[in-house]
C-alpha cells in the first residue's frame, strides 16, 4: 500500500491536546479518484491531493473509481464525500449559465441536478435568478461577479487548475488554422477556415475516439455533437470566442421578454436537394419535444411554442424570460429536414426515431456525410452549394484509439490535424517532424473537486476552505502536467473576459493558512496529528457575512 500516510504531528501549538473525545474526531473522507486507465492526470493529481489533506490531519480514504460508477453515484446521486472531475469548457458555456446557475442554484441540488455539492445559499439563489432571467447584459454581468465572489469564499466545489491545451497540425499542408473556444481545432470555424497549401485538399483529422452516433436527437458525446454541427446548421452559431453570430437566421427580433421573431435564409438546401424552410425550423423544435429527445430536452424546455409567422420567419414564445436563449438554445438545436424525420417517425415511432442511427445523416451544413466505417474511418465532403464554402474538399476522420498512435500518425504525416491535447512527451515526439506546428489555447474548463456539503466534514465552510487551501495546485501542475497548466480559482475562465471576476478570493495552496483557518474555527489536533472538531461544534454551512 503506497498511500502510506506521512502524518506529522501538527507543529506544537496550543491546539494539540491529549484528552480529546474520540466522538469529536473529524470523520474520514472517502475521496474518489478516477482510475489511471481513464485519466492519468486526475489519478495522479487525486493522489497528491489526498496526501496533502492527510497532512492537515484529515483521514482520507482514497479510492479509485471508474467513471461510470463515479458519475452515477456522485454526479447523479450525490452520494459522494468528495471526488474530482474535469468539466469541459464548451462554447455554449461561455455564457456562464451552466457554471453559475445550473451548478449552484439550490433548485439543482436534487438527484440528477448539477448542483452536485448541494450548495444552498439564498443570497446566491437570488443573484442566480437575476442572472438567468434578466435580459440586460450588464445586470447579468454584475450578478455574475458577485456570485463568483460568493463561490470563492464558500468553496462548495472549488476549481483547481486547468490545462494549457496544445493542438497540432501540419503546417506544410495547411494554414489558417482557427481554433475555437473550448474546442480547439475541432471547432466548426477551423473546418471552415483551414486552408490547404497544396493540391491535396483533403484534411486528415486524427482523433482518439471514433464517432458514435450521428442522430442529433439522441447523441450524447461532444465528439459527435460537434461533428454534427458540420453537417447540420443551427439558427445561430457561437463564434471562435463563444459569442452568438447569425447563421441560418438572418435576423433576430426580441419582441418582448418571452417572444423572439426570427428570419431565416432562403438559399439553404438540405444535402438531398430539398430546400430548408421555416417548416423545418418549426418542425425541429416541435418534433424534439414530441419525441422527447434527451439531447434537445434541456434546450427546448424553455420554449412554449414555435409559430410560422411569415414566409421566412418563425416566432418563438418562451414560458418565462430566459437570458441564454439565443446563445445556448438556438445555437445548440440543429435544424432537421422535416421530410426525412417525419417519414422516419411514421415508420419507427418516437422511440424508433431516437434509436435510429440516421445514416446517411442528411443536413444542410457545409459538409456532407460521405461514408463511415466504424473504428476505421469517417468521411465528410464539402457541400459545394453552401452559402459559405470551406476551403477544403473533404475531412477524413480516423480514430486512433490511443494517443500514442495518433502522435505517430502525426509524425508520419498520416494525420494533419488533431484536437487531442499534446502532452510533453507527445510534443517531443512530434518535434521529429518539422512540419508539425502547435497551436496553444487555454482550456475553458477546469479540474474541479466536488465536495458534498450534505455530509461532514464538507458541511462546514471552514473545513472546506482549509481543504481547498491544502490542494497543492502548483505542485500538481509541475509534476503531473509538467508545467502545462494554470491554477484556477473561478469556474469561469479568465479568457472569458466579460464574465470573469479576477478579484475573487484565492485560496491557493498554503498549509499553514489552512491550519490557521481550522484553528480559528476551533478545530483541534491530537498528538498523532489527527483532526478533531471544536468543542460544542456547530456547522457553519456558508461564510457568515
Amino acid at each position, binding site marked *: *500500500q*503506497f498511500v502510506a500516510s506521512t502524518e506529522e504531528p501538527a507543529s506544537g501549538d496550543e491546539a494539540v491536546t491529549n484528552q480529546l473525545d474520540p466522538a469529536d474526531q473529524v470523520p474520514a473522507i472517502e475521496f474518489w479518484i478516477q*482510475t489511471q*486507465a481513464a485519466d492519468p492526470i486526475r489519478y495522479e493529481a487525486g493522489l497528491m491531493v489526498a496526501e496533502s489533506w492527510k497532512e492537515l490531519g484529515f483521514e482520507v480514504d*482514497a479510492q479509485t473509481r*471508474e467513471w461510470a460508477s463515479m458519475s452515477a453515484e456522485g454526479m447523479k446521486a450525490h452520494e459522494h464525500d468528495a471526488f474530482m472531475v474535469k468539466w469541459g469548457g464548451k462554447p455554449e458555456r461561455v455564457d456562464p449559465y451552466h457554471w453559475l446557475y445550473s451548478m449552484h442554484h439550490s433548485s439543482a441540488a436534487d438527484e440528477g441536478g448539477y448542483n452536485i455539492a448541494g450548495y444552498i445559499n439564498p443570497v446566491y439563489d437570488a443573484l442566480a435568478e437575476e442572472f438567468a432571467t434578466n435580459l440586460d447584459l450588464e445586470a447579468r454581468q454584475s450578478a455574475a461577479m458577485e456570485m463568483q465572489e460568493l463561490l470563492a469564499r464558500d468553496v462548495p466545489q472549488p476549481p483547481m487548475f486547468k490545462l494549457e491545451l496544445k493542438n497540432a497540425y501540419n503546417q506544410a499542408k495547411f494554414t489558417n488554422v482557427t481554433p475555437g473556444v473550448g474546442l480547439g481545432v475541432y471547432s466548426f470555424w477551423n473546418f471552415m477556415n483551414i486552408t490547404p497549401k497544396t493540391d491535396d485538399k483533403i484534411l486528415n483529422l486524427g482523433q482518439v475516439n471514433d464517432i458514435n452516433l450521428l442522430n442529433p436527437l439522441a447523441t450524447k458525446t461532444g465528439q459527435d455533437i460537434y461533428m454534427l454541427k458540420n453537417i447540420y446548421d443551427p439558427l445561430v452559431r457561437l463564434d471562435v470566442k463563444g459569442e452568438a453570430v447569425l447563421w441560418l437566421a438572418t435576423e433576430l427580433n426580441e419582441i418582448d421578454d418571452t417572444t423572439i421573431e426570427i428570419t431565416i435564409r432562403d438559399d439553404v438546401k438540405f444535402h438531398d436537394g430539398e430546400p430548408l424552410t421555416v417548416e423545418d425550423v418549426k418542425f425541429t423544435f416541435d418534433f424534439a419535444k414530441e419525441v422527447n429527445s434527451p439531447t434537445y430536452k434541456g434546450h427546448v424546455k424553455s420554449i412554449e411554442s414555435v409559430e410560422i409567422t411569415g414566409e421566412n420567419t418563425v416566432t418563438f414564445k418562451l414560458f418565462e424570460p430566459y437570458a441564454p436563449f439565443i446563445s445556448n438554445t438556438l445555437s445548440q438545436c440543429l435544424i432537421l429536414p422535416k421530410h426525412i424525420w417525419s417519414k422516419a417517425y411514421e415508420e419507427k415511432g418516437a422511440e424508433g426515431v431516437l434509436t435510429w442511427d440516421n445514416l446517411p445523416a442528411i443536413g444542410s451544413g457545409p459538409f456532407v456525410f460521405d461514408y463511415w466505417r466504424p473504428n476505421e474511418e469517417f468521411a465528410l465532403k464539402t457541400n459545394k452549394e453552401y452559402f459559405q464554402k470551406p476551403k477544403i474538399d473533404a475531412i477524413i476522420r480516423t480514430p486512433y484509439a490511443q494517443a*500514442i498512435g495518433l502522435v505517430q500518425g502525426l509524425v508520419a504525416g498520416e494525420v494533419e490535424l488533431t484536437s487531442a491535447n499534446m502532452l510533453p512527451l507527445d510534443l517531443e515526439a512530434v518535434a521529429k517532424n518539422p512540419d508539425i506546428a502547435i497551436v496553444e489555447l487555454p482550456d475553458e474548463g477546469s479540474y474541479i473537486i466536488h465536495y458534498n456539503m450534505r455530509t461532514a466534514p464538507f458541511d462546514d465552510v471552514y473545513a472546506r476552505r482549509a481543504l481547498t487551501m491544502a490542494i497543492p495546485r502548483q505542485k500538481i501542475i509541475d*509534476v503531473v502536467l509538467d508545467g502545462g497548466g494554470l491554477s484556477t480559482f473561478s469556474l469561469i475562465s479568465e479568457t472569458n473576459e466579460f464574465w470573469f471576476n479576477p478579484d475573487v478570493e484565492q485560496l491557493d495552496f498554503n498549509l499553514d493558512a489552512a491550519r490557521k483557518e481550522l484553528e480559528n474555527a476551533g478545530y483541534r489536533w491530537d498528538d498523532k496529528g489527527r483532526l478533531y472538531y471544536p468543542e460544542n461544534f456547530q456547522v457553519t454551512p456558508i461564510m457568515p457575512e
Partner: protein
Amino acid sequence: MKNIFKLFKKNIIGIIGLSIFMFFVLVAIFADQLAPYDPMEIQFFAEGGVKRLLSPSMGHLLGTTYMGRDIFSQMVIGTRIAVLVGVISAVCVAFIGTNIGLIAGYFGGIVERILMGIVDVMYGIPFLPFALILVSVLGPGVQNVILAIVLITWRNSSRVIRAQVLSLKNRTFIEAAKLSGASDFRILYKHIAPNVVPVSLIYVSTSMASAIMSESSISFLGLGDPMQVSWGRILFTCYQSQAMFKAPWWVLPPGIAITLLVLSGYMMGRAFEEIANPKLRER
C-alpha cells in the same frame, strides 16, 4: 510423493523452473529490504525538478518512469503481487478443480452430470471478457482479480482430474480397497487422490502461470488494483504515458519478469506432466 520428488529432481526443465520460481519467491519475501525506494514515491532532483524518464544509473538501477518513480523498486514490489496472485490462484484452482474432478469422476451419475454440466457451461465463458466484467462489478483489486481467475480456471483441471479418476476408479487396486471395506471417502482421498497428485501438480503449476499472465493482462487493460504496483500495471503505465518507444528500460523489465515467472510455472508443469505420463518419461 517422495517418488514424484525424485523424478522431479531428474527433470532439467523442472529444475530450471523451480529455480526461477524460488528466485522470485525470495525477491517477493525480501521485497521491502530490496526496494531502495517507495515504488510510488515521486523522485525529485536536488534542485527540485522531477526525475522524469531517467535511463538506468547507479541511483536508479532500472531508471525512472515518466512520473519520476524508481522502476527497480516497482519491479521488486511488483514481484509480490505476481507471486501472491500466482500462488493463491494456483492453490485455489487446484483445490477446487481436483475436488470437483474427484467427486464427479468417482460418484458418477447425477452428481457427475451436474458438475460436468457446470464445467461445460464454464467452458463457454471467455476468460478475459468475463474477468473484465467481474472486475468492473466488484471493483478493481487483487482479490477480485484472483477471484475471476479462480472462477474460470478450475474448469480445466476438474475435467482432466475427472478423466484421471475415471480410469483409476476401475483399476483393480481400487476394487481391492472396496473389498477391504473401505468407505467412499477413504477410497477417494486415500487411494485415488494421491494418484492424481502429479496431474494436480501440473495444474498447480500451469494455473500459477496462467494466473500471473491473467493478472498482468487485466492490469495492462487498466483494470488491475490501482493501489498496488504490479508488473502488468507498470507496463500499462508505460504504454499509457506513451513512453514505450522511448524508454526501453521501462518496457523490458516487467515483460521479462512476467515471462520468466510464467515460464517457471509452465516448466514445472511440464516436469509434472512427464512424471504423470510415463510414456513421455522413459525414452
